């Protein structure tokens, strides 16, 4: 799975928007959305929310996990623990980027949240790198990691596959002692 595929799948999450037009219910394959009433918030998938926002028909409601305080809290917890902390959403990083590209005006303190997100990302990636290093050094056959987001899995998937394969090949080549 590529990063693009992850992005595509991430847009299926629901987000709350406030439309400014009126429209009856829309029936989609996955479920139905609506009815749309002006100034009444409702949940829509993110791909639809982006489309509406770009044609100026709605306003985003900031999701709870993307507020300044909650992101700060996440960062603090991550800094305290050695293992990964649970993320509110499996697609946190990609979604925060997407939402902020489209609707920066609707997110208060958007630029500061961006900074915090970057810190969070760097921290988790560092932890990931060190744990992979430990895995390789210890020679164990498997490791169990919890609370990773899809993007991170995607990043290390290919690398882990080929590198572990190489290590196994090298190990086989070394004569048993």
């Amino acid at each position, binding site marked *: 799975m590529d990063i693009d595929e992850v992005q595509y799948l991430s847009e299926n999450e629901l987000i709350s928007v406030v439309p400014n037009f009126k429209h009856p219910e829309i029936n989609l394959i996955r479920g139905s959305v609506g009815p749309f009433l002006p100034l009444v918030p409702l949940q829509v998938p993110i791909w639809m929310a982006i489309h509406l926002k770009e044609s*100026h*028909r709605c306003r985003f409601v900031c999701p709870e996990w993307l507020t300044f305080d909650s992101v700060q809290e996440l960062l603090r917890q991550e800094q305290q623990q050695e293992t990964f902390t649970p993320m509110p959403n499996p697609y946190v990083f990609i979604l925060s980027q997407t939402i902020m590209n489209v609707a*920066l*005006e609707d*997110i*208060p*303190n*958007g*630029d500061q949240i961006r900074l915090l997100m970057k810190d969070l990302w760097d921290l988790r990636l560092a932890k990931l790198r060190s744990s992979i290093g430990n895995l390789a050094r210890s020679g164990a056959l498997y490791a169990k990691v919890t609370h990773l987001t899809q993007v991170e899995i995607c990043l290390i998937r290919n690398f882990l596959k080929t590198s572990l394969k190489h290590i196994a090949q090298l190990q086989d080549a070394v004569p048993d002692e």
Partner: protein
Amino acid sequence: MVFIRDLKREFFEFISKQQRRLLVFVHLDVDSLCAWKIFQHLLQCEHITYTCLPVLYKYDLENGHMQHINSGIKSMIFINCGSTLDLYDFLSLDSIGNDDNALTLFVLDSLRPIEHRNVYDAKQIRILILPNKIDAEKKRVPQYEELFHEVYDDDNNDENESENEDNDDDDDDGSNMRIESTEGREKRLKRQWLKKRDKALGNYYKYRSHSYSSALVMFELAYLLSKDTNEQLWYAIIGTHVLRLNHHQNTTRSITDENNPALNTSNSKLSMDCVNIKFDEDINFHLLRHWSFYDSICHTQDMILAFKLWSSRGLAQLKEFLADLGIPKREYEQNYRDMNIKYKVNIKKQILDKRLQDKYHYTTNTIILPTFLLSSGFTLKLSPQDIVLSIMATLQTASSSSSTSTSMMIDLTERFSLALSCLNYHQLTDYLGGIELEKVYMNKTHYLIETLLQSDKNLSFDNTIPFILLKFDQNMFNSSTTTDHTTSCGFFTHPYQAYLFARNALQTLIAYTSASSNAVKKKKSKHLQRLPLILIAPYSSTNSGEELVEIVVGVPSLNSIMMNSFSTLFEAADRRCGNVAKFVFFDHSVLLLQEQHQQKFIDALMFVLAK
């Protein structure tokens, strides 16, 4: 109703239901560019196709109409052009066409007075105005009963005679005397009615003025469609600033009233990368952020008048003033943006200091102006005045390549697209280019006005002529510091530019003569204050180079600057001297004239003004 009450339903939904391509004529000035930008955004949101034609002259309208008449267009929109023309006559529209081919014309124009025939024709013409000003507009135009009468109407005289005879059906007994007296009475009534009508029309058309900006109307439409964003608000702000800058209108109160709901009050939480518009009181020196402080003051019209900067004594006084403000010489001669911040912070407070005001005799109501500032991320702070000046400079500068008539149209579109890209606040290259052009233009203007003051040969005023005549010929431009932007003819290329130049020249002239130590000149200045100014300058030459076409602009006297009656005066003078003037611009107070007819026109104008 001709005046559209509900912008959303009667205008926008009407257009989007038609599902046809739109034809839009946009006049080449800053306000219409801003209105067009907002409107373009709205059209793009609804995926409506359009064709946009920039126009500067009346014949551009005709040409555009001819070119597109057969392409199935059902609606035409005129932005800042066409409300002063009788659109039916001008475009030779067939008013009794089939319903299928019925064209609808929407006119959005800030020029007043609107041609009365446009108002009273509800079939095809609609006029877009601010919804809360409908009653004021309706009151301004004379009543229908005053202007049109089935029997008395002027157009068909023969028919009226026959209708008069038909009216005698009642008096069947008919002694001749009775019939005659009825006819006589009819004729008398008709004369009276015609006289009243002419008077009403004369009063209505006497003064030309600009009302609120077209960009504001477009923004109102965007607001009704809930598509108002900070971007559109910014364009509307620029549009209203044009009016303030060029036509002395105090529009700030209206802006703040209408924008308070739209402006984001909790600005602190907004991310830095967003477009952030703040309302502030700002120092209004010419292009303040792009020059050094000193240069900026030297080119601000109000400071020139206050300090009399054409004389060396004035320059010395200015330096004293700067010293009083507490700014060292090194600071005020470098770029304003690089100035030390502790001076910048205090400047506003110092300028408002009463003591300095009394000492140097300047007034602060035009220096400290409430205005808006756009800041987005780490780029330059943008101020609407600068943008207006930059766009005007871009519109004025013809590309230096060719001057044949076929390329005039291409030239217009080039200028138009260049000026539109100046409005873009993300890419600032064109905007900065426009600022550079404006600086060059300013320098030139100052040079011209200074030479004008020093030698009286181009000016003529005395007690017999009822106006000040300012004549330029080609030599004036050749001797100034030229770059390759302007040739000797190409200095005045836009009607509003010529108007502004003439107005500044008038102000400077009056200040100069009233401040001069020569007693004769001082007496003259009192007389001068009541006189309007006529500027005649070379505009362009035909291919052979022999026939020079000149541009004539009329500026009313300073006492009554808001009431520009020159459009009717020029028309009257033109009628007197046999229709030599070419009214190619939409605003009839600026016209083109061939050099050979110049003297004739001036004589006719003197006669008209003497009355």
